[in-house]
C-alpha cells in the first residue's frame, strides 16, 4: 500500500464526517460535525484543504449546488464518499481494531 492510500488523522475524521452527514455534507456542516464530536477547534480552511486532498485521492466526489439566499447568494460545494473512500475507511477501521486488540483502556503509566 502506497503512502497516498493511507489516511492521516484529520483526513480520517473528515472522511468519517462526510460519511455521517450523507447528502448534507458540505464545508460548514463537516466543520461543525468534527468540532462537535471531537471538541476540536477546526477552521473552514483546514476542512476545505483536507476535502480537496481527499477528492484528489479519489476518496470523495464533489458537486456544486445552486446559490441560496441564506448563503448570500453563493453556491455550495457538496461532497460524498466514493467506493474507494468506503474501502479506505474499512481498511483504516480494521487496522486500528487490529492495533487495539488486547489493550485494556484506559491506559496508565508511560515515559516521564
Amino acid at each position, binding site marked *: 500500500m502506497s503512502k497516498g492510500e493511507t489516511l492521516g488523522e484529520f483526513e480520517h475524521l473528515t472522511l468519517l464526517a462526510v460519511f455521517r452527514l450523507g447528502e448534507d455534507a*458540505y*464545508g*460548514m456542516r463537516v*466543520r461543525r460535525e468534527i468540532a462537535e464530536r471531537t471538541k476540536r477547534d477546526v*477552521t*473552514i*480552511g483546514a476542512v476545505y*484543504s483536507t476535502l480537496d486532498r481527499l477528492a484528489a485521492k479519489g476518496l470523495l466526489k464533489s458537486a456544486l449546488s445552486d446559490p441560496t439566499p*441564506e448563503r448570500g447568494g453563493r*453556491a455550495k460545494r457538496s461532497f460524498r464518499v466514493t467506493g474507494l473512500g468506503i474501502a479506505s475507511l474499512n481498511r483504516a477501521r480494521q487496522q486500528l481494531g487490529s492495533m487495539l486488540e488486547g489493550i485494556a483502556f484506559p491506559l496508565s503509566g508511560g515515559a516521564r
Partner: protein
Amino acid sequence: MKPPLLAQALLMAVAGPCEAEYVAGDLEEEFAIVREARGRAAARRWYAWQVARSAGALLQLRVRSGELTHVVLIASLGVAVPLLLLDWLWQFVYSQIPLKDGLHRAPEFLVFNALCVCACAAVLGAWAAWKWPASKWPGSKSRALALAFAAAIAVLVALWAGAASAPAAYVVTLALAVPASALLTFALRKSR
C-alpha cells in the same frame, strides 16, 4: 448584518476564485447561526478569526491548484519588470555622464518611475477585468485582489533587488499606489 468587510476582502484575496465562492457562502451561513446564539459582536469576531486562521490553508490550496503561480507571474511581469528596467535605464544613462552617477535616484526620476509603474498596474487591472469577466469567472473579484496584492509584493521585491536603496516614502507610495491603481481600473472597467 453582514460579516466584517476587511475579513471578507482578505478571504477573497487568499482563496482561489472557486473556493472564495463556497467558503464565503459557508462562513456567511454559519455567521448567521453564531449571531443568533452569541450576538453580533461575537459573530463578527468569530468570522474574522475563522478567516485569519484559514488564510494559510486556503492560500496553500490556491498554490496547489497552480492558479496563484499564474497570478504572481502576471504581477511580476506587469509591474516588477518595468520598474527594474526603468531603474537600470536611469542608472545606465547617468553612469555615462561624468559626476552624475547616482542621480537616477533623484526625486523627479523617482516620481517618473512611480507614475510609470502605476500606469503599468492600471493596465494590469484593466486587463484583469477584460480577461476575467464576472459572467465567466464567479471569483473574478478574488483574482483581482490577489493580483493587486501580488503586484504590491512584486514591487517591493523589485525595489529590494534594485541597484540602490530607495527612500522610505517612495517604497510606501509604490506599495500602496500600485495595488490601488490595479483595483481602480479593474472596478472601473467592470462597472462599464
